[in-house]
C-alpha cells in the first residue's frame, strides 16, 4: 500500500504536571512537530486528536476542535477515543485519509491530563475503559484486570514475578537518558519485588504511572513532501486495527490478546513484511504482563515464551529485538490519550538517528508500534520504515 511519510514529530516531557491543560500540552507537542517538519499550521488539512478521559479529568468534551484551535489550525478536527489506544487510532485515521488521496497534511496525536486527579479518582477514571456493568461494579480496576490476565498466564504457561520485574527494570534502564521520560531512574529486581502490592501479582513498579503529556505527528502525502522538499526519512508503511469483546470475561482467552494478533496480521500484510523483519518495537507495556502479551501477539514469540524475553536479555537494549527503547509506558509515562502518538514520535527518532538511544539500533530499517486500549479490546499496530 501507499506509504505515508512522517514529516515531523513532537511530544512534551511526560510526567506529573497536573496544572497543565491537555490543550496546552497538545499545542506544545504540535509546535515541536511543526518545527521538526518545517510545515506551517495553515497547511494542515485535518486533525485527529486522541483523548480518553477529558470529561472526567477536565470536564472537557468535544476536544477535537479545541485541540486544533490550540494547535493553530482551522480545519475539520475529530477526537478519537479508544481508551489508551486513542492516539494510535488517531494516527491510523490520518494514514487512511492521506492514502485515500483526500488530504495532503494531517496533524495527529493526543494529550491527557491525569495527575490533577487523586490516585483513587484517576483509578476510577481509567476503569471507565472497562465494562461498567460486569467489571467495574465488581470492583475491577485496570491493574486488577491485567492482574487477572497475568495470573491466568502464569497458570497456563508458567513464569514468575521476577520475569515481570525484569521487564520493568529493562524499561527503566532505557529511560535513564531519555529527557522526555517521566522516570529517568534505574531500578532493580529487588526494588520491584519489594514494592507495595497494588493487585497481586503486581507491585507498584509493575504498573505504568499516572502521567500528563501530549504528542503529535505531521503525516503528509508523498506528493506534498516532494513538492515542498521536505525529505522525510521515515514513513508509515503498514497499519492495522482490530477489536475484541470489551469485558475480559467474554474473551476466548484471558492469556492472549487476539485483537493485537489480528491488528498485527493486518499491519504486516499492509507493509508486506513479517515479524522477523522488525528491528525495533515500541509496545504497550501499561503493566509488565502487557509487554509479554504484546510481543507474543505480534509474532515475535510463541505463546508462553515471551515471559522470558527480558530475563534472557533478548528484548534489552543490546538484545536481538530491543523493545521499548523509549522506556515504554512503564518508565516514559502513560498519559493515555497521548501514548500512541508518543510511540510514533519516539520510534521515528530512533529510526532517524536523533533519539538518545538510536545508537543501539543504528542499522534498523523497520520499526513497529503497538498501542492497546482497555485489556486489549482495542489495538492499533503501525509499521514504520526508513525511506531515506
Amino acid at each position, binding site marked *: 500500500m501507499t506509504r505515508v511519510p512522517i514529516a515531523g514529530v513532537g511530544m512534551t516531557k511526560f510526567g506529573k504536571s497536573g496544572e497543565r491543560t491537555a490543550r496546552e500540552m497538545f499545542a506544545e507537542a504540535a509546535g515541536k512537530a511543526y518545527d521538526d517538519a518545517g510545515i506551517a499550521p495553515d497547511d494542515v488539512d485535518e486533525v485527529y486528536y486522541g483523548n480518553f478521559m477529558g470529561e472526567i479529568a477536565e470536564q472537557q468534551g468535544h476536544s477535537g476542535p479545541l485541540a486544533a484551535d490550540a494547535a493553530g489550525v482551522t480545519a475539520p478536527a475529530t477526537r478519537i477515543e479508544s481508551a489508551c489506544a486513542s492516539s494510535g487510532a488517531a494516527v491510523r485515521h490520518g494514514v487512511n485519509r492521506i492514502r485515500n488521496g483526500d488530504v495532503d497534511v494531517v496533524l495527529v496525536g493526543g494529550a491527557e491530563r491525569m495527575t490533577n486527579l487523586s*490516585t*483513587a*479518582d484517576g*483509578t*476510577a477514571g481509567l*476503569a471507565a475503559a472497562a465494562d461498567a*456493568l*460486569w*467489571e*467495574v*461494579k*465488581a*470492583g*475491577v*480496576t485496570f*491493574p*486488577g484486570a491485567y*492482574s*487477572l*490476565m497475568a*495470573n*491466568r498466564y502464569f*497458570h497456563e504457561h508458567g513464569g514468575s514475578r521476577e520475569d515481570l520485574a525484569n521487564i520493568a527494570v529493562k524499561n527503566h534502564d532505557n529511560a535513564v537518558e531519555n529527557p522526555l521520560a517521566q522516570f529517568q531512574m534505574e531500578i532493580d529486581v529487588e526494588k520491584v519485588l519489594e514494592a*507495595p*502490592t*497494588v*493487585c*497481586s*501479582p503486581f507491585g507498584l513498579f509493575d504498573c505504568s504511572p499516572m502521567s500528563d503529556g501530549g504528542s503529535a505527528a505531521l503525516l503528509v502525502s508523498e506528493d506534498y513532501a516532494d513538492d515542498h522538499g521536505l525529505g522525510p526519512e521515515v514513513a508509515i508503511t503498514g497499519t492495522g486495527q482490530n477489536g475484541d*469483546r470489551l*469485558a*475480559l*470475561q*467474554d474473551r476466548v482467552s*484471558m492469556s492472549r490478546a487476539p485483537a493485537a494478533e489480528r491488528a498485527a496480521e493486518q499491519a504486516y500484510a499492509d507493509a508486506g513484511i513479517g515479524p522477523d523483519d522488525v528491528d525495533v518495537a515500541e509496545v504497550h507495556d501499561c503493566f509488565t504482563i502487557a509487554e509479554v502479551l504484546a510481543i507474543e501477539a505480534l509474532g515475535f514469540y510463541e505463546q508462553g515464551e515471551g515471559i522470558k524475553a527480558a530475563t534472557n536479555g533478548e528484548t534489552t537494549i543490546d538484545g536481538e529485538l530491543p523493545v521499548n527503547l523509549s522506556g515504554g509506558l512503564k518508565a516514559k509515562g502513560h498519559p493515555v490519550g497521548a501514548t500512541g502518538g508518543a510511540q510514533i514520535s519516539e520510534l521515528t527518532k530512533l529510526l532517524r538517528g536523533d533519539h538518545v538511544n538510536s545508537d543501539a539500533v543504528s542499522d534498523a530499517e523497520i520499526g513497529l508500534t503497538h498501542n492497546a486500549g482497555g485489556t486489549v479490546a482495542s489495538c492499533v499496530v503501525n509499521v514504520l520504515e526508513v525511506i531515506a
Partner: protein
Amino acid sequence: MSDDDRVRDNGYDDFLDAVEEGEPYYLESPSGNGWLPPRQMDPETGERDLTEEPLPETGEILTSTITNVAGPSFADDAPFVVAVAQFGPVRITGQVRGMDHEDVDIGQEVTIGVGENETEGERLVVFEPA
C-alpha cells in the same frame, strides 16, 4: 443513593434479581455460546435468537487477584478478591467471599450469590466456596 432511588440497569439488575431468587440464568445463542444480559445478539455469530437457560449451580475460578488499591467506590472494601469464574458456557466476574484471600486459587469450585459493596451499599456478584 439507596437501591430504591437508583435507576435500574436492564439486564444486569434483572440477573442479580434472578440470582437472589435462586434462579440464575444466562443467555444462550443457537450456536451454544453463553453470555450475560443485556444481549440482543451473539457477538461471535450475530445470531439474535438468544434464550434464557439455567446457570449451573457451581462454577470454577479461572483467575483471581487480590486488589489493594481501589477506586473511590470500593475504598472501604479493599483489600478484596476479584475473580472470573466459568459457569457452563458463560464466564462471570465477581468478588470472592467466605474464604481467606490467600487461599483463593484457580480451579476452586464456587457458587454465585449477590453481595453488597461496603463503601456504597451497591449490589454486586459474589462467589463463595461450593
